[in-house]
């Protein structure tokens, strides 16, 4: 299939002499025109239809993201222009436009502003752009200009000589068709610019974070006798607490040596006094007290001696959330009994939200002390209704047990559809807003800057919510969640990663600001990865816990291992396959 354009050639004639293109390529003009000539459509109200609950902006943004994901870039741009709902930072759209318009110079100039900071990734990005430019010139039979790009732009970038040699050999191509075939490249009018964009996106995320990306298991903590359901790091980053179905919580000491093979990790304390499986763990601000929850009970432990200081039984159903206040003056518990209770640091009840509108499945307090965000199920409208809600809703009419009766007793019963996120003003305890969502919500985290909330929504979605703007930023997908309580977290430099467990046994990692799935980390055994936690003091380390009874510590691969490996993405060969019998398995022994 020959896809050379006839008259409407896509080559930017100005590309070489004046790389800061003036939008003179036909494609460029087209796209640009697209963007600016489309009138913004202004619609009344905020829902998709008059009589629907669907938030129009949320809906449209998802459509834009979906269009872009499959490659309908222009349709996405058109919809963005018409709706006025933009998904990307302006620099990112600008950059995308430059690449699609073959405005190579402008694109290169923008790289630094896009946060591609270090020399090496900058070179890499420049090389990819230069290579596309070179190939397009060759395709347009502008051999002299292409040669100039090769000599003056590509060669100085410290490229692999073989690669350069390969590129120069393409000069000998007999015709554009031959060039495309030999280069494995589909031409300026094909998908090559899109592919370049995708590759650049990968490169810049990867390369700017590459050195700090924890993708290798360095330790496996194996002491729990059953599934590990939750984990939390102490604030000093030296201890990890784990909660297990085996009715214990364990405090692990994770040595601070930077070299994993030198590091000692040991179960420091095993907290056994739980009558039920342990669901939550939470460290006080000074790491002196560890809270655990086992069904409806909360226990306060001296984290140094392992002595149980107090057992709190104000909840009548499972406690699903424990979170300390940012100033350490106390903590908040939430439960499936609909209660939200504020306790002081000694474990005395200080305040209460009373019986709230829903069974709380998780809650979080924003670090700036402004908000309490809770997620839950079985929503019942408070009577009398004290607040206006964003969306309409009816009284809870949970359906009775259905009667197909094929033996799968639990699966027979329809899940309650009333799942909500409720945002409270922390100081006044007043409801600020509430959002109804389909599907069970099992985890909520708030970013360090208090701006974003992150929650898992079954099935298979994680939502990033802008608390200030009160809207969905994006959905993250890839991980599996249908039946279990799965938790996610922010992590890395500036909380730029989002990590989640998954029912398929993998750990999923996304780039927060683009939503790109960066990593699917395998290693855990059968069952779910239930929770993940980023080390608060070491952005190069996080932990995950699983139904396989273990906790894995993930770290940045050591530099020498990096140099040994040929390809960037493939670290699998570095990871020892055996799981080891030791209680704490030092993974690097085998590397």
């Amino acid at each position, binding site marked *: 299939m020959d896809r050379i354009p006839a008259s409407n050639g896509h080559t930017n004639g100005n590309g070489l002499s004046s790389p800061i293109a003036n939008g003179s390529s036909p494609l460029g003009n087209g796209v640009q025109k697209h963007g600016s000539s489309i009138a913004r459509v202004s619609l009344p109200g905020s829902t998709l239809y008059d009589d629907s609950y669907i938030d129009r902006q949320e809906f449209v943004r998802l459509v834009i993201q979906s269009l872009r994901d499959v490659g309908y870039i222009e349709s996405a741009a058109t919809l963005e222009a018409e709706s006025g709902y933009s998904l990307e930072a302006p620099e990112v759209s600008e950059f995308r436009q430059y690449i699609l318009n073959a405005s190579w110079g402008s694109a290169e100039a923008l790289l630094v502003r896009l946060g591609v900071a270090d020399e090496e990734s900058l070179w890499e990005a420049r090389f990819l752009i230069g290579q596309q430019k070179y190939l397009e010139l060759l395709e347009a039979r502008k051999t002299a200009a292409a040669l100039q790009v090769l000599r003056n732009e590509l060669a100085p970038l410290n490229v692999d000589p073989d690669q350069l040699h390969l590129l120069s050999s393409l000069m000998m191509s007999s015709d554009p068709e031959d060039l495309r075939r030999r280069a494995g490249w589909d031409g300026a009018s094909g998908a090559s610019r899109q592919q370049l964009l995708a590759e650049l996106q990968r490169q810049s995320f990867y390369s700017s974070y590459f050195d700090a990306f924890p993708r290798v298991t360095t330790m496996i903590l194996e002491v729990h006798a059953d*599934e590990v*359901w*939750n984990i939390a790091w102490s604030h000093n980053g030296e201890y990890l607490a784990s909660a297990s*179905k085996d009715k214990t919580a364990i405090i692990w000491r994770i040595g601070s040596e930077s070299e994993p093979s030198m590091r000692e990790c040991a179960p420091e304390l095993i907290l056994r006094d739980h009558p*039920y499986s342990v*669901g939550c763990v939470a460290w006080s601000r000074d790491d002196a007290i560890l809270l655990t929850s086992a*069904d409806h009970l909360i226990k306060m432990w001296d984290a140094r001696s392992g002595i149980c200081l107090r057992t709190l039984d104000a909840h009548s*159903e*499972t406690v*699903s959330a424990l979170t300390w206040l940012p100033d350490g003056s106390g903590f908040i518990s939430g439960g*499936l009994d609909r209660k939200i209770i504020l306790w002081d640091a000694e474990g005395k009840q200080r305040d209460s939200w009373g019986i709230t509108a829903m*069974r709380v*499945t998780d809650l979080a307090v924003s670090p700036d002390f402004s908000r309490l965000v809770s997620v839950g199920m*079985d929503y019942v409208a408070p009577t009398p209704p004290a607040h206006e809600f964003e969306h309409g809703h009816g009284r*809870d*009419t*949970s359906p*009775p*047990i*259905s*009667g197909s*009766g*094929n*033996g799968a*007793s*639990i699966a*027979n*019963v329809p899940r*309650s559809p009333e799942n909500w996120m409720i945002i409270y003003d922390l100081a006044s305890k007043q409801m600020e807003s509430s959002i109804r969502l389909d599907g069970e919500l099992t985890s909520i985290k708030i970013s360090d800057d208090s701006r974003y909330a992150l929650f898992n929504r079954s099935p298979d979605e994680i939502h990033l919510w802008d608390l200030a703007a009160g809207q969905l930023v994006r959905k993250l997908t890839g991980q599996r969640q249908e*039946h*279990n*309580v*799965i938790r996610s977290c922010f992590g890395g430099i500036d909380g730029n990663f989002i990590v989640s467990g998954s*029912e398929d046994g993998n750990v999923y990692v996304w780039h927060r600001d683009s939503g790109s799935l960066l990593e699917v980390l395998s290693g855990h055994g*059968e*069952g*779910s990865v*239930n929770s993940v936690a980023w080390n608060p003091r070491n952005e190069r380390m996080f932990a995950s816990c699983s*139904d396989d009874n273990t906790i894995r510590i993930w770290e940045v691969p050591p530099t020498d291992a990096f140099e040994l490996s040929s390809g960037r993405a493939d670290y699998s060969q570095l990871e020892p396959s055996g799981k080891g019998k030791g209680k704490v398995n030092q993974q690097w022994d085998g590397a």
Partner: protein
Amino acid sequence: MGMKYRRYLAGERVYGCATCRTHLATIHSMISRAFNGQHGRAYLFDGVVNIVEGEPNDRQMTTGKHTVRDIYCVKCGATLGWKYDRAYEGSQKYKEGKFILERNLLVDVQ
């Protein structure tokens, strides 16, 4: 496998575990009150939540041979009744996949 919260039921009447009040079934899913268990009167239900099922075994009952498994409360582990996997008599087939909860082990939670 994995962490799950217990299910909560709603309706006019919800039966819970007498020991720990964990929700088990609603009156809407009740098929019959005319059963007998080890502790007297028992109810047949179409669907039950928050239970753990034991291993299957064959039992000779007044209405013939059945393959059943005991069922336990997911929270406190109390034995609550049993589930019918298989009825050998044709006339008893309607019980398959259904659950017996013993009345004396139940409490109204709502």
